[in-house]
């Protein structure tokens, strides 16, 4: 398999990956960098479990061919907490408000929410729901996820 060398910023570090050209960003994160927080829930961009932030936008990393990541900046769930382990307000809020149950959708859910709050620190419920419209969850009915994002927005102010 033809390999490609891709250099980009990953959670603040400059990195280079040498991976098969057909790999997606999700596969590269999980297999090459062993960052397994982003999940494959469907593999076709429908469920959002693989959501990461690339250049400020939440994207489905399962749909992103690795060559497209050259020179970009990628943040994953692993890059969210402070280096000393202090959790991001979103992470805290999800634990506090029961925004997480089985947890499989949680990484993607939090990353979509983070992209929202980075652009819009004081979102309405509609805006929150729209930002996670592509993130499926079977456990929560979304109610406490939305509450978690609201709380994080409030705490972030």
């Amino acid at each position, binding site marked *: 398999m033809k390999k490609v060398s891709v250099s980009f910023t990953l959670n603040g570090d400059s990195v280079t990956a040498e991976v098969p050209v057909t790999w997606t960003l999700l596969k590269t994160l*999980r297999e090459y960098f062993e*960052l*397994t*927080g*982003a*999940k*494959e*829930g*469907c*593999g*076709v961009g*429908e*469920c959002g*479990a693989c959501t990461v932030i690339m250049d400020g936008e939440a994207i489905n990393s399962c749909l992103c061919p690795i060559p497209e990541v050259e020179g970009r900046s990628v943040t*994953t*769930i*692993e890059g*969210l*907490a402070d280096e000393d382990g202090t*959790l991001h307000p*979103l*992470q805290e809020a*999800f*634990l*506090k*408000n*029961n925004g*997480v*149950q*089985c*947890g*499989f*959708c*949680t*990484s993607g859910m*939090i990353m979509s929410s983070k992209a929202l709050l980075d652009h819009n620190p004081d979102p309405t419920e509609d805006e*929150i*729901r*729209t930002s*996670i*419209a*592509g*993130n*499926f*969850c*079977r*456990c*929560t*009915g*979304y*109610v*406490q*996820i*939305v509450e978690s994002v609201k709380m994080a927005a409030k705490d972030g102010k």
Partner: protein
Amino acid sequence: MEEKMPDHLFVGKSIPRTIEADKVTGKAVYIDDLKRPGMLYGKILYSKHAHAKIKKIDTSKAEKLEGVRAVLTGQDIPDVRVGFLKDQTVLKKDVVRQYRDEVAAVAAISPEIAAEAADLIKVEYEKLPAVFDPFEAMKQESQLVHELDARGRPLKSNILPLPWKFEAGDMEQARKDSTYISKDTVSTTWVNQCCMGTSGCIAEFDQNNNLTLYDQTNVIFGHIGRITEYFSQIGLRGKKIRVVNPVVGGSFGTKLDTDIYEFIAIQLALKTRKPVKILFDRKEEFRALPPRQPAVFTIEQGCDKEGRLTFRHCEAILDNGAYTSWGATTPSVMIMPMSSLYRVPNVYFKATCVYTNNIYAQAMRGYGNPQATFAVETSMDTLAEKAGIDPAEFRLINRNRPGDDTPMKLRITSCGLEECITAVKEKLNWDNKKGKQKGRGVGMASLIHVAGGARVTKSDGHGIMVKLDEYGHVDVIESGTDQGQGSPTVISQIVAEALGVRPEDIFLTFGDTALALWDAGTHASRHTFMAGNAAIGACAKAKRQILEMAVEQMPKIIKSGFKRKKRKDPGFVEPDLDFGLIANPEDMDIRDRMIFPKNDPDHPHFKLPLTQILQNGLHVGIGQSKVVVAEEFYDPPTEMLNWEMKGNLSMTYAFGTCGVEVEVDEQTGEIKILNLVSAHDVGKAMNPTLLLGQIYGAAYTGVGYGLTEEIKVQNGRVMNPSFRDYQMLTAMDVVPIEAVIIEPIDEAGPYGAKGVGEPGLVPTAPAIANAVYDAVGVRITDLPITPEKILTALKERK
């Protein structure tokens, strides 16, 4: 004499899920993330037909592909039957009976190579006539799905030899005594559990052929039973099996049975001598995972002129699909709502499961109860209308009450159904909104469910082990599993409360058969109830050990403290202390990490940290060291159902009512839920925030069941195997949900709690159907209630 209980420090509080912080940082290791050294990846090749003879399988190209380590067909492994009625083999050798039949399997060094190899396997089939409609399949002349039963005896019919039948009272007399009778036929369809984490496992043998299975099952010991039986037939009798849970990405019933892919992973691991992982992709999850069982019910109910139910008569036909898993046993749970939801003295229920060439079914949250409750609660509304009684009032007249014995011999202890119905009425402003039509309407439905264990096997036991180290860390080895329901937090609250430590001192291990005592399974909404009671028992024993240690060590610690002080300060005068206060373990207590005499909790000298006692108790000297460890195996005094399907199988029962207000657009058939109230009798809310999460999530899945979700099966084939086409609800489908918590503290429950995992889902769909009827006057009797069905019904009415 009962001692005055101090206020709870942790139970009943909304403690955050900090114990699961790994889930918000990407650190939690799911089966997707787990790798073992040298691990291979398995891939399954499924049938291309609903019913066909396998003429020939050519695996030569697959075997030659670089990176392939094993290719297996039914010819390569022992012909051992598995499943509830032993009606299938792991890989099918001669005949396929459904599209998801496993025909061959590959193990390779990467998932991509495994998939490519599976594609290279050529199978020649000879198509056979198939039957997809259970009513057709029941006919004498129908094509048989199975020619022979598990013992090789010829079968004459597609009807499963499972005569699910329940009778109580005098049906004939009851009909005569009825002033009003209603009759309805309702049906429900296949729905997928839609766990966000797909199915998967890793099978690994050690050199001595002992198996470790990294597996998502919520019945870890049931898995061992089934695999042990399988092993005894493939030459591995007596080998040790260990089942270990990774973090589990949802369960909802999918992980109750041992599925075929798990046996395939075992066979591939055995063949290659390497760990083998099988992980479903989403399409496979929709096509090859047994979903919730579809059913058709014909239900009749009668009542007298005061509106008291006289009888309930119901016959159900269940499309079983080609093989049996737990789906075929869901009628055993349907008997519960059929016989015991509302007071009804005379009951007849019969369920017939029929083999077809469709996909076979499993359990899903509620285990038959959502289907049966849809039938009962549809009928409650139609009968109320015939009797001219408001449906809410009709339900109140017939509500279950504390102290009732139901026809099924369920003993109703605590029961908050009246409060639930009343709360829903109030919150929906029922009396003002009911019967106004014009596109807006309200509806309700209730439920009963087991909430204090469920004796479906001879033991309904649950074990827990509690172990303290000298630093005050508490290891809790839990025999249940955690699939996201919040048990780590709730159990740590209970242990902290019962032991006198803090939730952050608790470290839980779930789902490891090598460490845990036995458990019947984390199913039937039983975990908090069972683990809670077991934990309270184990903690009482551990606490006793600590207090015995304390009465031994405390005087020594205190006296040597005085000696030290005296050495430093010769003028120090030792206080005159009554050591009798701390002479007996019964007189001592532990709370918030401190040990003290009960009669003087703030004694200036006799209040010492738990860790000090633990350290002094351990580091004593030769032959006297002590550690604290205790276990409890809790098996409640419940009954297995007898041959008449009667018996008190749970210590207590959950009740609840869902009320819905809808708006229906008569031009488009679109339904909008304006308000959903879900009221639940939970005994005691152990952690209100987590409890709400269970209710919201279940109600939401119930809305999907009611309005959108359906696996479209056409001639045996799943036509919509993706999230996009399946239409699970998203965050954009806003359902304003309000939960109402009713707490009739249940004597049998830990701190009064009942189970609540499944109840929220059960009454949602019928509540919506009843609200739609109230809004536009058409009754949709087959789920899901789609706009198309509403428009068709509106057209027919005109």
